[in-house]
């Protein structure tokens, strides 16, 4: 079964030049929810408190996203930029 691993969708689509994405390591994430507090524009929490990143990161939110990456207690976030 499921012999072929697909990338996490958050990692899935190659990013076009200039696109920025906040990615969640699903295994590391423990649902602290700080990302949703800092970035309510692109992150909401599911019924169990785990983040759903519903859109790409607008450039103006980049500083806040960097903060989210730094304060995530389990270091489950990263920012990926298209080149």
């Amino acid at each position, binding site marked *: 079964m499921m012999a072929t691993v*697909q990338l996490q969708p958050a990692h899935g689509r190659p990013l076009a030049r200039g696109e920025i994405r906040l990615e969640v*390591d699903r295994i590391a994430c423990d649902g602290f929810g700080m990302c949703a507090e800092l970035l309510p524009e692109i992150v909401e929490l599911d019924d169990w408190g785990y983040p759903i990143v519903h859109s790409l990161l607008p450039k103006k939110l980049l500083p806040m996203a960097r903060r989210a990456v730094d304060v995530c207690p389990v270091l489950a976030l990263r920012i990926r930029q298209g080149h």
Partner: protein
Amino acid sequence: MSQPSLLPRLFAGPALRGGSEPYAAHVERLGRLPAIGSGTGLIRELDASGLLGRGGAGFPVGRKWRSVAERGIGPGAVVLVNGAEGEPLSHKDRALLLLRPHLVLDGAELAAEAVGADEIVLYVGERHEAAAQSLERAVAERAKAEHGRRHAGSRAGIRLLLAPDRYVAGEESAAVHFANDADARPIVTPPRPYERGVGGLPTLVQNVESLAYVALIARHGSSWYREPGRGETRGTTLVTVTGPDGRPLVHEIELGTTIAEIARLSETPVLQDETQAVLLGGYFGRWLGAGETWDTALDPAAMKASGLSIGAGVVSFLSARTCPVVATARIADYMARQSAAQCGPCVFGLRSIAEAMIRIARVEARRDDLSNLERWAAQVRNRGACRHPDGAVGLLSSALETFGSEVSRHQRDRGCSFVEARTMAPVPLRRVA
């Protein structure tokens, strides 16, 4: 089937009740492995054959081999032979390992030669004891018979690992994780196994059936492989067919064979009017109403166009007397328990979904259970490190579509149209607090 003379292929040779074909008989029947020279010739032949991976995802085998063979400069690679077969409705991998282990080992050696691998890891489900023993015996037979004049691929070292008995153990990254750290849980990708796998080396993870077909294609060529087949996807495949009595049978069929024909394959043919639905593709698959799907051809390309898949070759018939809501709840419960418990949405999402589904099955539903199910299915999708949650909610969504009226009968009218609640999953329904 329409061209019976073309089949069987993997199961050609001595009577199947005789058990494993010995190495001497295998070589007598098929000859030694052909030398493949540089690996790219065989890979081109695999491309031409159109052979798709038989682990469930259906990725083209030639392309997969090329991604490992054409890795950047660097020493070594590994071939991981995947016979974990964690899908409860699939039995074909263990049947193949039991009956024709040398086809699988031929394919593994060819793969090792083609991609330049130094090691072959045989990964067999720990519950499939007879299959693992057959494979182990086969490895010993070859070592004894081939001393001094081994096929190039057989220079690779071989080790046998027993995959833990859990659904996700056969997932590619989980298999690699187990070979590296004795932990059969999926890991976050990338890097994918073909980039960095067993021992940090590029690793080809290939299902046992795919490798067995490679052993035949290397001997007879891609046009031979493509002779059978009625539609776009050519060739043959193994399927596990489970009748309403719950007894699984493994068959080798021509691609393009219809569900109706498969229903007639067993000793006691499955009748359409005694069948309510068909589960295609196993616990990662979809429920389809018997009427709408009876003429469906098992042709991966055509099925893909309508959003269907046979997964690892699973066709399971649900009796018209069995409550489909109960059957689905059992599967949902199983899938929740089989979560590797790593990713929050999978752990909590599948548990919540299973509990709601069990309440509905027991006609004890809360008012918002059904609407929650639909929301949770959407929330969970695409949010695991592996595809376990996606597979589970895909099946659930198909149940809500196919059995909508029975689901609402349970939910709204607190009734069930079925007297007999027959089991599909090997787990008892659990009382939910």
